[in-house]
């Protein structure tokens, strides 16, 4: 097992290096640089040259990448070109905020989707199954932009004003305030992700419920509750675990739209900012964090598989 973990970690590291190279090339292919975007329509040839020299953008491409890589190896994650601060100082808060939002959304999704999916599987083909499936479809088929807007206009609008429209508050501002800012974005994400997990749970369970060993369990006289809880769920949940792991990656960086709509300072908004400003060092680190989250979440899901299903062995 130790060998397996080491091999997976190594391959993840390799993937991350490849990603950093792709991002670096992609940004250089785009027209303009951080300097042209900062100076905009006030640029003069001299000011542009001076700023590019100051930012180190006048060096050849390979040297720029090598310098960045060298920094990373020695623990220096670089300076943001647009914010002019150490990348680590900027990323910390965003990472915490995204993790918080992701945590809330995932827990909510798991708590709602798994029981509902189980219920739908047990009532397969009946009206309750249909209602649950249709309901979850609405969540996933409406773009999160629209869901977020509707929630803002209805729940944060001047008439009801149950929650703030967005933004975030530190825990120091009080538990209520802190939580109130998280409700609407977390709710939006929950509505979007519900269908993924719910449908995986349902289909996984439906398959297992028809299997021979469940029939055996029923035949030996086990109660239906015991059959579902002890025998079926453990196997039926496997696909849902993978989906939850992938959702975690999505929540840590893919939720640009939700973070923009709710003016929530997280990783997604930071990545968008870095792209818009051609801020290569900031973009590199942000993308790598998200990519690493995806990779390690997947890895964790694989390990969880082994735990849920002792037949699975990794070499």
């Amino acid at each position: 097992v130790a060998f397996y973990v080491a091999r997976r970690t190594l391959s993840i590291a390799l993937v991350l290096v490849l990603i950093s190279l792709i991002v670096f090339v992609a940004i250089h292919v785009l027209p303009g640089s951080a300097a042209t975007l900062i100076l905009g329509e006030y640029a003069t040839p001299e000011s542009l040259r001076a700023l590019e020299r100051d930012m180190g953008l006048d060096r050849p491409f390979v040297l720029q990448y090598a310098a960045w890589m060298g920094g990373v190896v020695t623990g220096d994650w670089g300076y943001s070109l647009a914010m002019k601060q150490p990348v680590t100082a900027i990323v910390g808060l965003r990472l915490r905020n995204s993790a918080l939002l992701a945590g809330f959304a995932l827990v909510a999704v798991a708590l709602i989707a798994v029981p509902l999916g189980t219920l739908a599987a047990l009532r397969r083909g009946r009206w309750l199954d249909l209602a649950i499936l249709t309901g979850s479809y609405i969540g996933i088929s409406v773009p999160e932009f629209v869901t977020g807007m509707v929630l803002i206009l209805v729940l944060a609008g001047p008439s009801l004003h149950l929650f703030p429209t967005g933004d975030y508050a530190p825990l120091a501002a009080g538990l209520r305030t802190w939580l109130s800012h998280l409700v609407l974005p977390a709710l939006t994400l929950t509505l979007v992700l519900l269908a993924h997990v719910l449908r995986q749970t349902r289909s996984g369970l439906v398959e297992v419920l028809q299997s021979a060993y469940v029939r055996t369990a029923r035949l030996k006289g086990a109660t239906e509750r015991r059959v579902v809880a002890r025998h079926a769920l453990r196997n039926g949940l496997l696909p849902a675990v993978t989906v939850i792991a992938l959702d975690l990656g999505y929540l840590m960086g893919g939720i640009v739209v939700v973070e923009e709509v709710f003016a929530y300072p997280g990783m997604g908004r930071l990545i968008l900012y870095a792209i818009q400003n051609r801020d290569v060092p900031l973009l590199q680190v942000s993308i790598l964090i998200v990519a690493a989250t995806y990779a390690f979440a997947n890895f964790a899901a694989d390990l969880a598989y082994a735990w849920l299903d002792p037949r699975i062995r990794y070499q």
Partner: protein
Amino acid sequence: MTYSRRDFLRSTAIGAGLAAPLAQTLFGPSVARAQGDKHGGTLRISATFGLSTINPVAHISGAEWMATRWLYNNLTRLNVKREVVPDLAESWAASEGGRMWTFKLRRGVQFHIGREVVADDAVATMQTILDPKTASPYRGEIGPIERVDAIDKYTVRFTLRAPFADFPAMMTLPVARIVAREGLGDLKALAAKEFGSGPFRLREFVPGDRVTVERFPSYYRSGLPYLDAVTLKIFPEPTTELTAFKGKETDLIWDVSPDLFSQVAGTPGADAMAVPGGTFANVILPSDKPPFNDSRVREALKYTVDRTKMLAAIHGAHGELANDHPVSSAYTFYAQLPLRTPDLGKAKALLREAGHGGGISFKISVAASPPIREQMAVILKEMAKPAGFNIDVEVLPYDRYLAQVWNKGVPYVGFYATRPTADTILMKLYHPKDGLDEGRWAPSHAEAVKMLEQARETLDVAQRRRLYAQFQKVARDDGPFIIPFFRSELSGKWAYVRDFRLNPSNFEMDLEEVWLTADAPRKKT
């Protein structure tokens, strides 16, 4: 249970209208002052983008300029009437015909770090900006400074390469905020720390998201500011920004679109603020090659524009009609010329004369932001069609526009904000060396460019007025730009925010005398 005097007043005198007089007779003037007190509270402002850095030497966006206005002082400042008034400098005077400018500093002004502001700080700040290694984006804007010297503890002298009548106005620019010497050693640290003397000091800065500043008790204007704190928060999505404003999560919504503006205007208790300024979008017609090297073709296109309709369609009629030159009535040297009215017959005749009786086809490229660029190009296309202009409009992302279109000698739509003086915007637009000459017009109009140089180098106001008036006429009739209107700056606030005036340079947001009435949500913090 403890029962405070305030609770007592609230419970006994509510609704009776007796609170103030009763308080005065019962407790004397101290409580009365607390009732109608201007002091205290947090003002929460929203904007939609910017706020990457608070380094005054390097910042570039309106939101950033706004924040450093609260943290720092300049030598001079531009008031809402667009007059240059004292700030850190109490007085100033020109010598050697405007080639030398001497500023006398106010005594006893404190930096937030607890030290007096002296001439050396101003000198060090200016030298940092001028140092090419600093790569300050707006270095070119502050004038042809040759050297800066501290004559004594409170006197700063600038020596310029050429006389420059508007120099004191350049000291109002955001790039010219005076930074304490201690802060200039590490310019990278200045991105998130402040070394100012302004009415507020920094409490929290989250780049790209928000800045919070708090009252500086030792500010040089004693008793000011009234506010305890100010927060500027970025809401990338305008609908969210508006909803937050309507729900009183923010008190002031800054720089809004005409759409949002009319929504603010329709909200009871909210004040929609529109202030005319000098912000415009211009269609650039490269005048060094066909077809626009023929001034008749340029003029023909200018005659197709129905300026009133265009302003109404793009900016909800909030603005001032313009005459194809960049000087609005917000500037001192604005010359009132007869306004060009649309005349398709004349446009057709001019085109025929120029040998284009069969019509002209060309392409205008526009950046996707701000939207006014595309709007203007598309409306121009329709308005010019009947006269024989066949315009193709191409929309590009901003980065591609900068790299491939901007200042490359092709037709496109530029966008310029209000500058401190007419000279700044005129030089930027028309001067081939100190500006960009995007219209490639200067080589064929050396006389006109000469007028601009003379006007900035003389201190004789009457002569300057004459020269600028002459130039505006030439630019209107012959110039390489179509400038249909100046759009007003639009913002909104709740009525409980008092004594707030919007500057035509809307980032010059002076909050020193702004206060909140007792019914503001964050009067008490």
